[in-house]
């Protein structure tokens, strides 16, 4: 919000200009990156392990093969993950359960990376609908999706991530909601980050997440959105819930999902 406003005022005021520049950067030893989720949906458990690369390196980051990956729950069960493609690990027998606390263990390159996350209660989607938007100079015209759901009452704070897919293609925008100001209310959210055309299939996921996962995505979105050095705050790596200097996160995610085929309203 702050940064958007900032840029908006600047745009209105001045015809500022951009150009690509050559800035030399330090190269450092690469670090391990873990992207791990356990969800309440079958087949939704994946752990991706990769590494960082130099900033100007044009090739894709290296995937980490041969890691030892397992997930444990607080009832003493454990699941060993198998590598199904380069650096991608899964276990088909595991399906996340509400209220369970899960622990991820990864052994790679002599590192012992662990992380914990608790599966929240699934919050159902009340409805999703689409609305036509005529477009502005900043956005193309098209149909936008609006989600409605009811935040459960209760003292404990709730955290959500809303994800949107166009068919199989995920929308890259990280949309997060906390109920600090809206506890117990029915809420409507406009899903930004892209419009749909008639015939498209919009898949919307309401993901209930714990605080550790929320703060990871919150700080991740800050780094992605406001990487402008000079005008805004000092950037830093997102707050991870993983140990041993690993980057990335481990999230137990309770998903409710709804699908909408976009139709021409007129």
């Amino acid at each position, binding site marked *: 919000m702050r940064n958007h406003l900032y840029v908006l*005022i600047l745009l209105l005021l001045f015809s500022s*200009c951009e150009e690509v520049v050559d800035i030399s950067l330090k190269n450092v030893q690469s670090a391990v990156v873990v992207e791990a989720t356990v969800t309440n949906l079958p087949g939704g458990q994946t752990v991706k392990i990769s590494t960082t690369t130099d900033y100007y*390196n044009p090739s894709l980051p290296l995937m980490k093969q041969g890691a030892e990956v397992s997930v444990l729950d607080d009832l003493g069960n454990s699941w060993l993950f198998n590598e199904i493609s380069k650096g991608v690990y899964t276990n088909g027998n595991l399906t996340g359960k509400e209220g369970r606390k899960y622990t991820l263990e990864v052994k790679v390159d002599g590192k012992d990376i662990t992380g914990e996350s608790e599966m929240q209660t699934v919050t159902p989607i009340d409805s999703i609908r689409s609305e036509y938007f005529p477009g502005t100079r900043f956005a193309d015209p098209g149909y936008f999706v609006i989600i409605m759901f009811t935040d459960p009452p209760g003292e404990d704070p709730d955290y959500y991530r809303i994800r949107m897919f166009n068919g199989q293609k995920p929308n890259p925008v990280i949309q997060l909601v906390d109920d600090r100001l809206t506890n117990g209310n029915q809420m409507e959210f406009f899903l930004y980050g892209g419009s749909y055309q008639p015939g498209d299939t919009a898949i919307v996921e309401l993901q209930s997440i714990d605080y550790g996962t929320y703060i990871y995505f919150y700080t991740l979105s800050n780094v992605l959105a406001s990487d402008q050095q000079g005008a805004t*705050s*000092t950037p830093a*790596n997102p707050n991870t819930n993983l140990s041993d200097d690993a980057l990335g996160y481990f999230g137990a995610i309770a998903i409710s999902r709804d699908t909408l085929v976009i139709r021409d309203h007129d």
Partner: protein
Amino acid sequence: MAFFKRIGYILILLYSFFNVYGQGKHTLSGYVRDAATGEELIGATITMDSLQTGTSTNQYGYYALVLPEGRYSVTYRYIGYSPVVIDIVLSGDIQKNIILKQSSETLEEVVVSGEASDRNIRSAEMGVEKITTKQLQAVPVIFGEQDILKSIQLLPGISAVGEGNSGFYVRGGDASQNLILLDEAPVYNASHLLGFFSVFNNDAIKDVKIMKGSMPAQYGGRLSSVLDIKMKEGNNQKLTTSGGIGLISSRFQVEGPLLKQKGSFMVTGRRTYADLFLKFFSDTNLNSNVLYFYDLNAKANYRFSDKDRLFLSGYLGRDIFKFRKTFGFDWGNRTLSMRWNHIFNSRLFLNSSLIYSNYDYKFNLMFEDAEFTMRSAITDFNWKEDFQYYFSAGNTLKFGTKLNYHRFLPGEVSSSGDFPVNDTKLENKYALESALYISHEMKLFYFMSANYGLRFSAFTQMGPGSVYSFDSFGNVIDTLRFDHMENIKTYYNLDPRVTLTFQLSDQSSVKTAYMRTHQYLHLLSNTTSATPIDLWVPSSRVIRPQTSDQVSIGYFRNFRQNQYEASMEIYYRKLYHQIDYKNGADIFLNDLVETQLVFGSGQAYGMELFFRKNYGKWHGWLSYTLARSLRRFPDINNGNPYPARQDRIHDISVVSIWEIGRKWSLSAVWVYYTGDAVTFPSGKYLIENQYVNYYTERNGSRMPDYHRMDLGITYHSDRKKKWQSGWNFSIYNVYGRKNAYSITFESDKDNPQKTEAVKLYLFSVIPSITYNFKF
């Protein structure tokens, strides 16, 4: 209240002491004023040819000299004015109000004959710069807007926050560590339009003083500097109207006498109209936007008698921004100062002040059937008593008290209609900041003078309110309730301030100073530039007062009858209880904002060189600062020291003004500084198939160096005519340097696998023109 009773006794005691002290001597006292406008002149010098001593007028234009009986020839001088010499026979107390005429000669002639410009050598103050608005009029500026905050950035030890920004850093401190006073009222957010303009309309300003090295004991509450701005009193001789029309704003001023010249008033307004141009766009997304600011300064004073004078001054300014019909955002300051000058006897001068200051901002979201509003504010109520007692020439005592009540409204959310937000209000916070000070300026031997003082301050955060205690994860484990006026936490501090001046010769001196300062209010802001959504918080059980210790030493040398002045100062500062944010800190509408902070220390040191030609057809200055500013926080950068953002290693300003005849002047400014210390990525990785930058070191990289040159031409019509007018043309960034405002590390739009560095720059060459008039 027993505390205040005791202060009362002390004051009475002191008062009776001063009445008996120094019998057998007499006082020469009075005001020094401008002949044309009747305005009191601040810092006019009064010297006796027979004695190696003198004094200068205080900030109300008052002076007093205590001398043995005898005959004296007394000279009154002020920059740009013809000096006045009077002969007096002192056999009893004499009151002498002096009127000085602005010289019609060129600056050169005036100064040679008039100005005792060796103040920099003799005075017992160090690291103090004084600017009159007149001096600045020839300096070229962006958009043709004269701006005091941008002009002081051209002085050594003071650097700009960024391109076109009115925020400033002093000796390695951050922008919130400067106390900005407008007629003694603190101004909490001194910038308009995200820092591109300051709130100080040059037309309304009489005198500006910045203290960075030796802050006298009467000032406190901020760590790094005091910027003391005085508004004009208004012409008490005749009604005058003046104004200016520029590309981005227009200004208008009326001033004149009140009640048979016993008083005067001044009203000045300024409004920008950048948004009016938006109306020309056919794009409805643009032409329905509103974006402007205005400033209104008003002041009046009335002289009840020779001994009593009342001043009333106020400021009101606001930025207003509306995006289409759905989003509104406005912010601004309000100040009101009521001051009463009273002369008990010619030696004892008192100024009593009641001051109000407020800053607030407001967001508004409007929909067809719903509205959402968010508001935040800080309000001060201030009472001050400032005494000045003149023992003898060059021997002055200042003492006084201050009581400042702060009320903080951290955030309040309300909505109406169908907006799914619960009304929320963060608890107000309250604090009382009080201080007692005494400072003494004296000549010790013929070659040495001293200014030493002590400031005792107390700060109490008080109820009503809740205080939370939390664990290391920031979870609340306990809540304590406090009642109205109940003490939550009190801090006491003693700040010593000393400046010693050793006069080596008529033309040179060595000075050394030590100062300790405390800051009880802290600015929380996620961004480095001035933003309207600044949040001020009081010291509390968690946030300790910020503290700074500074020592400095300098050599001052004038040449050719003070035509040239040169100085070198070296300083070293230690900073304690500095504040930064946890990664991912959320300071917006957060009741537990204290859980988002981390604390550390810092140090800053540097050398400042300054060379100025004070007068002549060509005049100007060169300033160079070599400095470092480092921070160390246990929770940042693995506990290793790192450069503060404002760690400007080299900072150079060159200001050059040529007077061509009496009507034209040409000016040029060149600035250069090392790029800010910033955090650039050292690598990248993929999350959800998006590149994320990998950071390993806080502020380990540098923005590209900044430099630019500005040129200005000023034309002024005949100064003797009734209708006077002038033009000012200026070109900002003459050679079109694309100085980086920000650098973004992002994926190429067409090829996401290719990541690159993208520079954003705001200004290339910007010409501007302003028309000024006066009648």
